[in-house]
């Protein structure tokens, strides 16, 4: 896994996972992956396994919590939910993301000095 390439993707994926959990409440890994795929409408190719790498990192940072539960098909599954610290992080990241996105959007619209 070449790290320099995944750097941006990693942050973005973190943000997406946090936002998903914030919006949907507790979800298992498959649920999160499905949700992100649906929203992005295949625009983002997310390797489904990668979601678990992201999840363990977020759990370790204490932004999300993990609990064992029973899935809709009656299987043991791990459910993740966002924590207080995670909500704060999400707010900060969202703002940051919008500022960067706005800046880039403006930069791209700019057609040079007239």
């Amino acid at each position: 896994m070449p790290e320099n390439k995944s750097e941006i993707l990693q942050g973005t994926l973190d943000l997406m996972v946090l936002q998903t959990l914030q919006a949907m409440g507790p979800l298992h890994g498959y649920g999160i992956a499905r949700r992100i795929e649906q929203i992005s409408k295949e625009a983002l190719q997310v390797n489904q396994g990668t979601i678990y790498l992201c999840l363990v990192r977020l759990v370790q940072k204490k932004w999300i919590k993990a609990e064992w539960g029973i899935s809709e098909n009656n299987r043991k599954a791990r459910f993740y939910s966002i924590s207080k610290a995670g909500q704060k992080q999400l707010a900060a990241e969202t703002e940051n993301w919008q500022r960067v996105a706005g800046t880039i959007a403006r930069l791209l619209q700019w057609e040079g000095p007239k």
Partner: protein
Amino acid sequence: MLSAFHRIIARIRAVFQRADSDRDLEFELEAHVHLLAEDHILRGTPRGEAERLARIELGGVYQLHEAHREIRALPFLDTLHQDLRYTFRTLKQNPGFTAFAILIIGVGVGASSTMFSVTNTLLLQPLPLHDSRRLVWMYNLSDDGVSEWSTQVGHFLDLREQNQSFTDLAAYFAFSQPGDAKITGEGETERVSSLMVSQNFFPMLDVRPVLGRTFTADECHWNAPGTAVMSYGLWKRRYASDIHILGQEIIVNGSAVTIVGVAPSSFDFGTVFAPGNHVDLFQPMPLTQETNSWGNTLAIIGRLRPGATIQSARAEFWILANHLQKQHPERNTLRPVLMPLEEHVTGRLRRALLVLAWAVGIVMLIVCANVANLQLARSATRQKEMAIRVALGAGRRRLIRQMLTESITLSCCGALLGVILAFAGTRMLASLSAFKIPLLSTVRMDAASLGFCLVIAIVTGLLFGLAPALQVPSISVHDTLKDSSRASTGTKRHIWIRSALVVSEIVFACVLLVGAGLLSRSFLNVLDVNLGFQPERAAALRIDPGARYASRAQRMTYFSQVLNRVRSLPGVSAAGVTDVLPLAGDRSWDIQAKGKPFVLGHDPEGFIRIISEGYFQAMGIPLQAGRAFSAADTQFSEPVAVINETAARTLWPAQNAVGQIVLSDGMGRPGRRVVGIVSDVRHRALEQNSGCELYFPISQWDESSAEYLVIRTPLPPPALASSIRAALHPIAPELSTNEFKTLQELVDTAVSPRRFVVLLLAGFSGFALILAALGIYAVISYSVNQRSAELGIRMALGASPSELRASIMLQTLRLAALGMLIGGITSWILARSLNSLLFGVTITDPPTFAGMLITLAAVAALAGYFPSLRVSRIDPIAALRAN
């Protein structure tokens, strides 16, 4: 930031929960696959196909596991964990090698850590006194510029008042002797050591009593009521740490002394100022006209003012001393010499300790070379294993890491053993009160020593792991795997490196042997000096008459009774009394031959002893001319003296000294007629000449601070202790029992620092020699193994086993000769640094070098002989077939 911290903690924890986390992930992924498969089924995919699709979409589970581990834990620790497990497995497979390596590393680390603790305490750490770097020791240089004298009270008071360099100057009485104070009254009679100190002694050193106070100015007057500060040790031992001791009177030397304070346990005067002794009582030293008339009596310590340096203080004291000399011509000379207190305390040992520290470093290098050698031997047989691992995809970096992990693990295991040995070693050294070495009793393993152990362990591991690790990159997979014989590629280079290691071991052993040889020979020379008396079969016992015998006549009766009773005991061949024992204290005055002009400061220094008749016989000091004292020398007969040969030569060169008059005890008195000449006695140190000695009869003397009974006996002296005590009981019931000392003990104590160095160095070089021998043995037997095919061919072609053995011995001796050549030159260069420690040998001492060469050659020959025997066991057919 907080999240980063949480993450680190979680990652470290995860290292230890590997199995749990793996299982959790497996469950999770399994659930994922099933959920995904069910979605596929809902979309109409057949069940079997759905599961297959789901697994494909999830991706490689194995890689996912790996990536998950890398993210959730610390991959570095993980590999370390793996490497360690592997290491322990391989080490377990070679129990012989492992045990041997751990043993020699353990001994090496143990020795170096012990030495480090000693060096750290004595040389690196500040003295156990507050802000000790600012403390300065002052002595008064003797007229001949050789000895350190003490200073007169008047000079001390003036220096203290007039100097600008010190916040304060304090002093203590320099002539106290161990066992000066006898405690009687309640409890058992006991001899303890008492020291007179100036009033500001404790405040200047910033030593605060744990109980009570130090002395007031009133208590330091002449004839003030007796007071004392007690050492913590005596308080705890004799008085069971009773706080009611304050204000109580105890009886010391027959007079009442009030205890005003107890010194803290951290303050041990003896370990710093009087190694090998403890001071139990501190009493105030009056600094008055009366004590001024005692002459040079004070040892002086000062605390530098902030901003003052020792150089500036030296300059100031030089000017002050000149001024004081002019102002007070009636006083003794004053030539103040200032040095940092630390230098005074440990300076003399610095060189010896550095030598020991280097020696132990060399031992450690030999250990490294030896283990490296063994590692190389193993790595040769492990080349195939390495090649297979490379072929299976192991990175060479990873293999190097594996090799280094192995050696560091090994060295850490050894260091663990070393730490245990070092704990034992330091404890043993600290308990050796027989060694007259300052601060030795405070040596112990502390955090610094443990840190040192750790560093040593890692550095050693890297050092001896380097050689085998560096071989990893050169492993040629193809050749190694293809080559079926044991003699694989790289063998030549292998042997070359290993031979170099062995040669370096021999070089190091050479250096150590030469050092140990030179110092041992010096030690033997010191033991061999003519002491001027015979310490064997003689012992001394403190018998101060005490206050009950006040007049001179009473004292004389006491002494003659003591001598008569002791002489009548079976097994006592001679007995006499003296007030100063050789090697145990000294006192000197200016002396003069009557009829020669008197020049203050230019008269020879004379060491004075007050003795009874029979003393020379008891000590075994031969009479050279004239007569010894007899019962006829009394208070009322002519004052007489016996002098030693040096005094006779110095005062009356080319004249017969017997019959001349010597002036000494106070300039106003009439002189003493010299009636006899005895041999010189080495009373200062075994390495030092005696100077002028004068003996006066006890019957013509008023009082001495101490009296020792010296007895000579054909029996072992301790056997007599109880019968002497019993014989003396009627006249000296309070004789303490703890002061019976053989004269040999005095000599042993005097040479103990030298013995300390020699013993350690001899131990180190013995260890080095064994290691070097093992190194040679290992290399030669390895090369015999490697060459078995070649030797087999040679045998088949008609070479006899003895010829082959000779060629192997030749190979051994070539290595040894090269090592000894380089080692001899190296030691010849390094021996210079030992110069100041040598006595009676030169740095190129031929017997030492010859002895070293013979020892090493013999050991090398022996180490090569055993592997060479194996040649006769080589079966040429088998050897040829194996190839």
